[in-house]
């Protein structure tokens, strides 16, 4: 898992790099004993939740873009 995360943290896709770096940070913290196992599980679950937030936000961005296009189109017509 660590090798895959390290690969993802420099894969060139910013969204994947950010999540992989954060996952590495969490994994490092549990390995050093700075956080408990339950804290580790909770933080990983939060990371998955962040993906849902980003997906919803991307969806809203597209809808806003569509509204912009309609507004501009209506002004030009």
């Amino acid at each position, binding site marked *: 898992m660590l090798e895959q995360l390290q690969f993802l943290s420099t894969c060139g896709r910013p969204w994947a790099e950010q999540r992989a770096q954060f996952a590495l940070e969490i994994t490092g913290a549990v390995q050093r004993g700075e956080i408990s196992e339950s804290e580790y599980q909770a933080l990983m679950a*939060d990371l998955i939740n962040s993906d849902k937030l980003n997906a919803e936000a991307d*969806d809203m961005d597209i809808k806003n873009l569509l509204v912009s296009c309609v*507004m501009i189109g209506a002004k030009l017509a």
Partner: protein
Amino acid sequence: MIIWLNTSMKIAAILFTVLLTGCATVQSWIPSFWDDNQSAYITEVRLSVERIRCEDDQTVQVARLSEDLRRFQLYSEAKGTLQRDVLRVIEPMQLTVKEWRDRGQGSKTYCELKKKLLLQQGERASKVILGRW
């Protein structure tokens, strides 16, 4: 007369399709629009996250953050069904905060990592909420 009938039939067909697919589907296509209060509330949420000091009592600070998110939720719910998109955006933040609130005082590193994640979530949420028409 024939043209009028054709147009009427087209309108009827569109209305029939809308009725079949249901109002909920149509509403999900319509985005929510700019709202001064929602913009202010999400900024307050971000400010509460930014102010978290991990060396202090976490429970009080997380309770405040949870209230800020609840204020946003209650206001948006009261505003109407078109606000479902913004409610879906803040739901993951509420889950992140709920777990912290249920846990109470966590380790300092846990607090720092939670704060970092909430800062990222808050930034994305506010960008889309303040970026609406």
